[in-house]
C-alpha cells in the first residue's frame, strides 16, 4: 500500500511552516482513523467483545467457579478426543482430495488461452457463488439411498445393493470436497498465472523434457499458491458446520458441531467456549504461519 506522498505533494515545507504542517498531518491521520471507526465498532461488537467474553467464560464451570476443567476435559474425555480425531481425519482427507482435483484443474486453467479459460472458470466460480446450503442439499439428494448415484450404479450393473453414501463419513467428505475445492483452485490459479513463462521456455531450450521442466521449474514456483490453498481449505475444514451436520447423519461429529451441541443441547457455555477458543487459536495460528511465509493478501486479491 502506498500512502500519498505527503512530502512531495506539499513541497518545500519551510521551517516556520513545519509545525503547522505537522499539525495538519496529525489531524488528517485522526480523520482517516475516524473513517475506519464505524467498521471497527461493528467488528468490535460482533467479534471482539463476544469472543473475549467467551474466553473469560471458558475458565468457569456451570456453578461459576474458576476452573480449568473445560480445557482439561479436552485431553481427558474419550468423546472429545474422538471428535478431534474425526475432525483432523476429515480435514486431511478433504484437503488431499482438493489438491488431487484442484492442482491439475488450476494448472489447465492457467495454460488455456484466455477465452477458453474464462469459460472453464465459470465451472469453478458458479459453485463458489451458489449457496452452501443449496449445494449440501444437492448432495443429500444425489447420495441418498434411492438417489441418483445409487440408481444409476444399479442400472449400470456396477452394484447390486444401494450403497450407504450419505449420513456418514463418506457423505461428509464428498460434500466438503465439493464446497471447498474453489478455495484451493482460485489462489492456486492466481499464483500460477503470475509465473513467468520464460523460465519454462528457458528450461525447454536447455533440453529439459516437458515433464522435467514441469517438476523442476513450474511446480516449485507454484508452491506458494498451493500452500495458501491447502492452509485455507484445511482451516475451513476444521471449523466446518453445515455440511457435516446435514450429511454426517449425527454420527460424524466434528469440532464445530460439538460446540453447537454444547450450547444448544447442554447449555454448557464453559465447555463450548473452551472448544471455541482452542479452535480459534489453531485457526489463527495456521493463518499466521501462512501469512508469514507468503503474503496472503496478495494471493487473495487476485481471483475474486
Amino acid at each position: 500500500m502506498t500512502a500519498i506522498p505527503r512530502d512531495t505533494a506539499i513541497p518545500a515545507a519551510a521551517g516556520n511552516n513545519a509545525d503547522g504542517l505537522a499539525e495538519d498531518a496529525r489531524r488528517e491521520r485522526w480523520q482517516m482513523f475516524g473513517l475506519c471507526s464505524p467498521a471497527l465498532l461493528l467488528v468490535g461488537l460482533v467479534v471482539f467483545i463476544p469472543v473475549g467474553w467467551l474466553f473469560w467464560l471458558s475458565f468457569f464451570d456451570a456453578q461459576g467457579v474458576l476452573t480449568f476443567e473445560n480445557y482439561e476435559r479436552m485431553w481427558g474425555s474419550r468423546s472429545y478426543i474422538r471428535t478431534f480425531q474425526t475432525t483432523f481425519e476429515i480435514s486431511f482427507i478433504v484437503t488431499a482430495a482438493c489438491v488431487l482435483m484442484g492442482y491439475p484443474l488450476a494448472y489447465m486453467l492457467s495454460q488455456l488461452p484466455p477465452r477458453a479459460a474464462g469459460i472453464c472458470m465459470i465451472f469453478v466460480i458458479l459453485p463458489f457463488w451458489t449457496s452452501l446450503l443449496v449445494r449440501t442439499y444437492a448432495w443429500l439428494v444425489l447420495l441418498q439411498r434411492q438417489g441418483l448415484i445409487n440408481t444409476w450404479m444399479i442400472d449400470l450393473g456396477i452394484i447390486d445393493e444401494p450403497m450407504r453414501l450419505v449420513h456418514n463419513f463418506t457423505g461428509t467428505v464428498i460434500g466438503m470436497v465439493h464446497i471447498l475445492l474453489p478455495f484451493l483452485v482460485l489462489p492456486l490459479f492466481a499464483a500460477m498465472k503470475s509465473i513467468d513463462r520464460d523460465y519454462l521456455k528457458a528450461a525447454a531450450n536447455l533440453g529439459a523434457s516437458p515433464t522435467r521442466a514441469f517438476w523442476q521449474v513450474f511446480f516449485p514456483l507454484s508452491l506458494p499458491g498451493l500452500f495458501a490453498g491447502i492452509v485455507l481449505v484445511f482451516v475451513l475444514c476444521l471449523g466446518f458446520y453445515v455440511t457435516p451436520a446435514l450429511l454426517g447423519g449425527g454420527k460424524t461429529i466434528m469440532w464445530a458441531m460439538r460446540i453447537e451441541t454444547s450450547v444448544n443441547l447442554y447449555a454448557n457455555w464453559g465447555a463450548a467456549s473452551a472448544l471455541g477458543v482452542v479452535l480459534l487459536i489453531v485457526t489463527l495460528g495456521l493463518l499466521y504461519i501462512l501469512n508469514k511465509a507468503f503474503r496472503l493478501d496478495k494471493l487473495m486479491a487476485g481471483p475474486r
Partner: protein
Amino acid sequence: MLNRPASETQITHLQRLWLYFWCGLVMLFLILPSLIVIPMSFSDSIYLEFPPQSWSLRWYENYLGSLEWREATYVSLKAALFTVLVATPMGTAAAYGLHVSGMRFATIIRVALVMPLMTPIILIAIGAFYLFAKLHLNYTLLGLIIAHSTLAIPFVLVTVSSGLQTYDMNQEMVARSLGASRLRAFFTVTLPQIRFSVISGALFAFITSLDEVIVAMFISGGENATLNRRMFNALRDQIDPTIAAISTCLILVSIVLLMIAQFFGTQRARRPTP
C-alpha cells in the same frame, strides 16, 4: 490439432489428453450437483427423481403458497439489502481511510477488520448469540443486520482496497488544490473511478448475507427467521422437494449476481490504469 504444442515446453495436446479428461471430470463434479437440482424441482413426484417422470409446478406452488416460506424469504432479502446498505459505505470508508493515511496502526486496523473472515464462524455465532441475548437483539432484524454487516465488511474492504491500489491518488490532490473539499473531491473524482470495485464489494455483501446459515441459526428466529435457517431445519428432518424449488430460485439469484459481478469485473479490467 492434437499434435500441436500446447505449452512453452512443446508438450502436445495429445500427450496431455489425460489432463483434459481429468479436469473435465473435476469440472463436472463441481457444476453438476447444483444444476441437477433445477430439473428435479419441476418433478411431479414426492421422490426427487431424475429425469422426472412427469412435470409440474407443485413444489413452487408449495413454496410460494406457504406463509412461513414467504416470510422467511422476505426476511432474508431485507437482511441482505440492509447488509449491503450498511457494509458497503463502512467498508469503503475504512478502505479509503487505510489507503490514504500513513498511520502506523494501519496494518493492525486492517487485520482487525478482516477478523470476521478468519474467525471460525461457529465462534462468532455463539458469541453473538450470547452478547445479543444481553442486548435483546436476538430474533430481531436489527441484530441480524448488525451481524451480517460485520461478516460482509472484510469482503468490501478487500475489494475496494484492491480498486484503490490501481487508482492514482494524485487526481484527488489536483481536485483539492483546485478548491474542492476532501469530501467533494472523493465523491466527484475518486468514487466514480473506483465504482466497479465498490459495486463488486456490495454484491459480495449481498451474497454473504443471503447465504449465511450458522449465525442466522443462532440469532434469528420467530418471525425473523431467515430462509436459510428454515431450510436447514427442514433438511434435518426430511428431504422436502419444496426445498428443491427454493434452491432453484437461489441458484438463479447466484447466476444473476455472478453475471453482474463478471460484467463489472471486465469493466474494471478494461479501464485504463494510470
